[in-house]
């Protein structure tokens, strides 16, 4: 596969490490959320046959974490974003 890195352009997927569902960005606050919320965050994932937003890490590159929107059936990649931008857009800060 080829991932179009927002900064570095097209890169072979072999340069990346895959983590999984991009919902891992949505970590609850440990001081307010309880075990149930963390359990859902960590273990409850959807496994769609189709469009999937997922985290890839450019380990053999610039160390960016990316959110890649990929169709799990066709492997078509329709969007690649910096995970940091996605996290900020979700209101995450410090």
């Amino acid at each position: 596969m080829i991932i179009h890195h927002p900064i570095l352009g097209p890169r072979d997927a072999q340069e990346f490490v895959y983590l999984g569902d991009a919902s891992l960005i949505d970590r609850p606050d440990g001081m307010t959320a309880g075990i149930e919320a963390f359990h859902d965050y960590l273990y409850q994932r959807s496994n769609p046959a189709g469009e999937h937003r997922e985290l890839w890490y450019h380990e053999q590159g610039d160390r960016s974490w990316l959110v890649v929107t990929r169709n799990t059936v066709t492997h078509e990649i329709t969007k690649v974003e910096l995970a940091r931008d996605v996290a900020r857009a979700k209101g995450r800060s410090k």
Partner: protein
Amino acid sequence: MTQSHRIAGGQIDRTKTLRFTFDGVRYQGHPGDTLASALLANGVRLMGRSFKYHRPRGPISAGSEEPNALVELRTGGRQEPNTRATVTELYDGLEANSQNRWPSLRFDAMGINDKLSTFFAAGFYYKTFMWPKSFWEKLYEPIIRRAAGLGSVTREEDPDAYDKGFLHCDLLVIGAGPTGLMAALTAGRAGKRVILADEDFRLGGRLNAETFSVGQTSGADWAAATVAELATLPNVRLMTRTTVIGAFDHGIYGAVERVSDHLAVPAQGKPRQVLWRIYAGKAILAAGATERPVAFENNDRPGILLAGALRAYANRWGAKAGERLAVFTNNDDGIRTALDLQAKGVDVVAVIDSREGGDLIPGVRHLRGAEVIDSSGKLGLKSITVRQANGRSETIAVDALGVSGGWNPNVNIHSHHRSRPIYDPAIAAFVPGQDGPPGLLVAGAAAGAFSTHAALRTGRDAAIAALELIGAAPDLPETEDAPTRVTPLWHVAHGKGRAWIDQQNDVTVKDVKLAHQENFTSVEHLKRYTTLGMATDQGKTGNVIGLAVMAELTGRSIPETGTTIYRPPYTPVALGTLAGRSRGKKFKPFRLTPSHHWAKEHGAIFVEVGNWLRTQWVPKAGETEWRQSVDREVLATRKSVGICDVTTLGKIDIQGTDAGAFLDRVYANTFSSLAVGKCRYGLMLREDGMVFDDGTTARMGTNEYVMTTTTANAVTVFRHLEFCRQCLWPDMDVQLISTTEAWAQFSVAGPNARKLLEKVVDQDISDAAFPYMGAGNVTVCGGLRARLFRISFSGELAYEIAVPTRYGDALLREMLAKGAEFDPIVYGTEALGVMRIEKGHVAGGELNGQSTALNMGLGKMVSKKKDAIGMVLSQREGMTAETGYRLVGVKPVDPQAKLTAGSHFLEKGAAPVAANDGGWLTSKVYSPHLGCDIALGYLKAGDKKIGQRMRIVNLLAGLDTEVEIISPHMFDPEGERLRG
């Protein structure tokens, strides 16, 4: 032996003679021959025995689709089984042997399987060899494996190199027949970067095997001229002997180039094969078509070939498969074979055309509406039996039969992304369906356009469409444009004998009938039940017939029945090619520590730790057993001073105004409160609450920390920190960089550690100036920048000192030289392990990914006053139980008794069953200080069992030992030494 079956013409170089052997018999051929064409030219038709029934077999094709003519090539380390004789390029000195036969190809004792064929029908093994269960592995399978099989693998190492390479292009053209050549010419003349790849050693595809003209020349000459023009274009790369094996995601194609397969030995410095990864903007599949046979009784005898293959052997290789030839066809293309062979002077005895119509050839007996129903000839074809239109049977003596059941487009690569081919009744074959690999166009015969004119036209048009070319395109030369006229005939319904569909896996019409009878009627079930198409040829010649027979049996149409699809690779790939250079010691690169050269000079024993080579121990003269060295290293360190290279530990510089707050989030304990110039042990959890990693982290400045990780997790911890920084808290002002390889770091431990370091460190490092857990920047040897940490893994007064990596070797030598009065020693990972276990520090055996801080006795380190990764889930019910595992120390009651890591705790008198299991030993060493084996272990409620006696049981090692449960801090529990 003379080349008795060599005829005029062909693209072989008759001025040169090549010598080769098959089963030890010497033969001759010419450059341009394949092994199969040369054997046929020498009158050899019998080339192998079939997989299951050991039936005598010869080639049926002249290409890579060959199911039968599989031979063992070469000898020694280069011996290669299951090589298709039809694509093996002849070279001088080639040695080939037949396989799957004993004692000889002509007399094969296992031919008895053929007589017992009733017992070997599809599903036979599943039904028969089921009971008793244990017999399968021990008895049935070995016997069956011996009887049914292909070639044998050499036990010697392959002496050749295999490479990997990367290529980029605007257009990849797969196949260099008329379609591919025209596509490449169109794109090449337009200045595009083109790769034209073909599995053959001569480009031109079918044009080399046919007699019709293209423009003013023969097809072969037109191909040669076009190739010559392409070769002059700097933007075109011609790749012969290169098979595109698969279409992968996003325009990436795999290809295998057989650089040296046509040579006895690769040229100096050249690889045997290259695995290419081709990044193609667009691709055109111009892979042509494969002829399929018609199944009839005993249709697998040597001498029965595909009609197009007979023609190819005659036209391209000047070889005839027999003296008296017949053709059995259901389409016009079969007639071409009769015409061409007749023109070559071969005696064409009859054309058996299953159709009522069809063209007649002057001077050839033509049987319309007739079918071949049987054949005879034990080791090769002697006669065929024909059922004429009027129902009368007749036996015709022939020694070669060309069979044509029509042509199947080579859709394989187009279906690598699961696109299902669709049935086109006009050509009675499957053509590429929808949703193929994006960017891949199909043209020519691969798309079902069978005439040469259609090939040239669609090849040109595909290039224009793929690359959106504008402007002049090459003219199309005048050539044949015959329509495809075929009346489907899949198998001849006659008799009770076997009619082969898949010759490589010995699947017959009967097997398909049996599958139907047992309700395995879907194509996917049919395939798996009968093994149809599951051989190394992936059923290139047989699949469509198999499913057509199933369609007939179920009364469904062929489109309703459907088809299986193909997977990469297009043709078999040697495992060595996939491995490339990554084999043996070169499987991964070795990482060497800064002290490696010193250690090697001193005869150190090394151990692989991930990619690192670390010093395991350094034997001294007279030490014959590893324990002598390790015990000495431990005692010397605890007595005076020892030095250990700890460069492999992960080192991460963490800087920024939020660095402290960041560390509070990623460590279970607190770091923002750490004073500048101090270190602290840090415990890192995973989000699920299990311990991820540990290490010491030092605060070098207000906004600057240096983290260490375990060697094993250096990469994953860094990755995790980047995840936290970018994905969870994107606005924290914190920057990370891995400095693992930037600093050479040594542990200097023992009562004389400070005295030794004072010889090289320029600053005051007295206990007052540099107290326990101190950290700071210093200089050594008169100004070289260094980092010093007063931390201890051994329990001794100890420091870790780091200098830029390139000075690591010099620093080690300097410390040993300047501190010579203290008799310093260098210790390895074994002594390191002994000392850390004596002190009860956790490492690999305890940090097993399934253990919590509580298990390790470090529960209090998990702060609940702040949010940190893993804090919440570490409080889950099952992970906080009072009765859970706790880290304990263990020593045998009898000091002579041995312990073994992995042994399990049992109460005295308890039976060694899982229900009584109390936990297990995680790490074990011999402690020279305690004079016995000691161990760490996880014991249920272990903290409440200190002082008790239990048993350690290891049924595998035959061990049942009484032990005392002790504190894990087995040596200097008060820590007086390390604060010294």
